[in-house]
C-alpha cells in the first residue's frame, strides 16, 4: 500500500436544496485497497459516489487525485483521471449490444470509423477472463438477465484501464454463484493494484473482501475500521448509531465522573 492515496476526499460537502446530503466527509483510497462504504439508506453513500464520479459536483471540500487537488465537475473529468463507476441502476443502453455498451464513450477506431472487429475481440477476451457467460457479445442488452447485466456493467468499468473502480451495490441483485464471481472479481481488481470503493448493505460481502470499512451516517463520517481488527457488531453499531444514544452517553459521562 503506497503512502499517498490514489484518491482522497477532504471535507467534502454536498447540499440538495434543503437537504444537507454530505457534511465534511473524509475518505482515502490507496492503490490495491478495497474500501467498503457502508451506511443505512439515505446515509449519503450514493451521493458520495456521484461526487467522485462527477455526476454531482461538490459544494465544499477538496478531491485529491494522487496527492494533487483536482476538480471533477463532469463525468468525463472522472473518466479521464481514471475513475470507473458501476452504478446500482447499471446505466446500460438497452438498444445497443454488449460490445456497444462495453465500449460506449471510448470506442476503438480504425481509419476514423468504428473498429467493430477489434472491439468484439477485446470484449470476448475480457468477458472470458472474468468468466462471464452471456449468449453472444452481439446481443442487445435488453435480452440479458439482471445478473448478466451486472457483470456486463462491471466489465464495462474495466475497459478503460481505470485506477479506481467504484462498485455501487454490485451484488444486490445477484444469486449465490454470481455474487461469488463478483467478489472474486473484486479481489482480482485489488491484485491488479486498483483501488476499489465497494458500496454494499451485505456485511458478509464487505467482511469477505474489504480491507477498510468507512461508515457513513446521516451524511457524515461515523468511523473507519480495518476489517481484520473489527467485528460485525462494531460496524453495525456505527451504521445504526446504536453506540450514540442516551444510554451510552450517560455511561460515558459516568465513566468520566468516576475518574
Amino acid at each position, binding site marked *: 500500500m503506497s503512502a499517498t492515496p490514489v484518491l482522497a476526499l477532504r471535507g467534502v460537502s454536498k447540499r440538495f436544496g434543503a437537504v444537507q446530503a454530505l457534511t465534511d466527509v473524509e475518505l482515502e483510497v490507496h492503490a490495491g485497497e478495497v474500501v467498503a462504504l457502508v451506511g443505512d439508506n439515505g446515509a449519503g453513500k450514493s451521493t458520495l459516489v456521484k461526487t467522485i*464520479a462527477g*455526476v454531482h459536483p461538490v459544494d465544499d471540500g477538496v478531491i485529491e487525485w494522487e496527492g494533487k487537488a483536482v476538480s471533477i465537475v*463532469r*463525468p*468525463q473529468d472522472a*473518466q479521464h483521471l481514471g475513475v470507473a*463507476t458501476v*452504478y446500482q*441502476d*447499471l*446505466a*446500460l*443502453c*438497452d*438498444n*445497443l449490444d454488449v460490445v*456497444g*455498451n462495453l465500449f*460506449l*464513450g*471510448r*470506442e476503438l*477506431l480504425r481509419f*476514423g*470509423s*468504428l473498429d467493430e*472487429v*477489434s472491439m*468484439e*475481440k477485446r470484449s*470476448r477476451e475480457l468477458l*472470458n*477472463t*472474468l*468468466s462471464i*457467460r*452471456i*449468449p*453472444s457479445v*452481439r446481443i*442487445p442488452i*435488453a*435480452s440479458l438477465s439482471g445478473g448478466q447485466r451486472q457483470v456486463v456493467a462491471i466489465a464495462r468499468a474495466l475497459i478503460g484501464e481505470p485506477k479506481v473502480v467504484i462498485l455501487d451495490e454490485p451484488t444486490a441483485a445477484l444469486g*449465490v454463484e454470481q*455474487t*461469488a464471481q463478483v*467478489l*472474486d472479481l473484486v*479481489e*482480482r481488481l485489488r*491484485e491488479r493494484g486498483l483501488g476499489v470503493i465497494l458500496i454494499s448493505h451485505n*456485511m*458478509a*460481502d464487505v*467482511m*469477505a473482501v474489504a480491507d477498510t470499512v468507512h461508515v457513513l451516517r446521516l451524511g457524515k463520517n461515523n468511523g473507519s475500521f480495518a476489517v481484520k481488527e473489527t*467485528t*460485525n*457488531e462494531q460496524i453495525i453499531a456505527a451504521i445504526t448509531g446504536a453506540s450514540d444514544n442516551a444510554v451510552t452517553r450517560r455511561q460515558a459521562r459516568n465513566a468520566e465522573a468516576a475518574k
Partner: protein
Amino acid sequence: MSSDKSTIDTSKPGGGTPAEEVPPATVAAIDPRLLVREQGFKGYITEFQRKLKGGELGSLPVIVGLIIIWTIFQVKDSLFLSSSNMVNISFFLSGTGMIAAGLVFVLLLGEIDLSVASVSGLSSALFAIFATTHGINPWLAALMTLAIGAGIGAVHGFFFAKIGVPAFVVTLAGNLGWNGLMLWLLGSTGSLSIADTGPLHILGQRSFFMNQSIAGAYVLATVGVAALLLGSLVDQTRRRRANVPYRPTSEIVLRTVALAVVAYVAAFVLNKSSGVPNALVIFLVALVICDFVLRRTTFGRKVFAVGGSIEAARRAGISVAAVRISVFAIAGFFSSLGGLFLAAQTYTATLQAGQGNLLMLAIAAAVIGGTSLFGGRGNVWSALLGMLVIQSIQTGLDLLNMNQSIQYMITGAVLLAAVVIDSVARRTQKASGRA
C-alpha cells in the same frame, strides 16, 4: 451474527485461494440454456425466424406492404408499373425522402421535429432570393441556404438541449415561425421563379445520371452490388483472422444476390424510358453517407446511445446536449436540402412551399420505413422504403384520378398502420425480452 460469519466462508469460494490460481474460464464454458446461433445457412434461417417471433420485424412489413400496394395499383391501372411511372416515383420521392432522412436522426433520439416542412419551404424561398433576386452564383446560394438550414436546426437543438424546452414545442413554434418568415420574405413578389441551372438543374426533372445513357443505371447498380460484396468479404476476412464470429459465405452470397436482383431490375425498368434521375442518385448517396455515419462512427453510436438511455449516455461521458444540438442541425440541413429538391420540381419558390401534408408525409415515411418513434431503433434506409410506399400511393391515386381528399385519408391510414405495427412489435419485443 454467527450466521453472518458462516456466510462469509461460503461466499468465498476456494477458501482464501488467491484469485490468480483460479483457472481462467475456458471458452467452451457455455450455458446450455443459451440460444446459440448455429453456424452456416441453417443458423441464419432459424435466427431470422426467432427474430420475427420476437417482434424484430425490421423492414419486412414495409416490403410486404409495398408488394401489396404495387399489385393493387397494377391491377387497377396497367400503366402503374410502367417505366415512365417508375421514373416519376423515383424522382418525386427524393425531395420528401431527403427531409425524412434528417427526421430519422431525430426519431433515433426519441424526439420529433415538427418544423422540417416549414424549414424546407423557407429554404426554397431563401435560395430563390439569393439566386434570382440578388443574382448570387446558384452553387454559392445553395451552400448558403443549406448552412442557414443547419443553423435553424441548431437553434431548435439549443432551445431543446440547453434551455430544456420539449423538442415538440420548440419545433412546433419553429413550424409556425419559419413559415411566417417565408411568407414575409416572399410577400412582395408572391412567388419567385428559379433558373434551370447549377444545382437546381441537377435536382430537376430533366437531369438524369450519365445523360440518359443506357450504361448509367447499370453502372449505379454494379457499384452498389460490388460495394456490398466487397465490404462483406473484407469484413468476413478480418473477423475470421481475429477469430470472432463472421457471416457465413452463403449469407453474403444471398444478400448480394438479393440486392443485385433488386438493383438490376430497377435499372432495367428505369432505363426503358429515361434512366435514373440525378435527384434520386443524390438522395441515395446521402443515405449511404448517413448510414455510414450512424453505424460506423462514434457520432452515430452516441446518437443511438442517447436514444437508448440518456442517463447511460451521460455517464459514459457523452455530451448529451452536443449530440442533441447536432442531430437537430442535421435535421435542419436535410430539411433545407429537401426544400431545394422540392423547389427544383417546379423551378419556383411558392408561398405554398412546405405547407399541406409535407410534414406528415416526411414523418410517415420514416416511421413506415421501420424507424421507431420511441427512439434508439431504426436506420436511414427507412426514409427510402417509406417514401417508396408513400410516393407509390400518391402516384397511383393520381393515375386513377382520385381526389386529394382520398389521398390524405389513405396516407393517414397507412401512417396509422405503420405506428400500430411499431407499437405492437415493441410490445412483442418486451414480452420476449428484447426491448
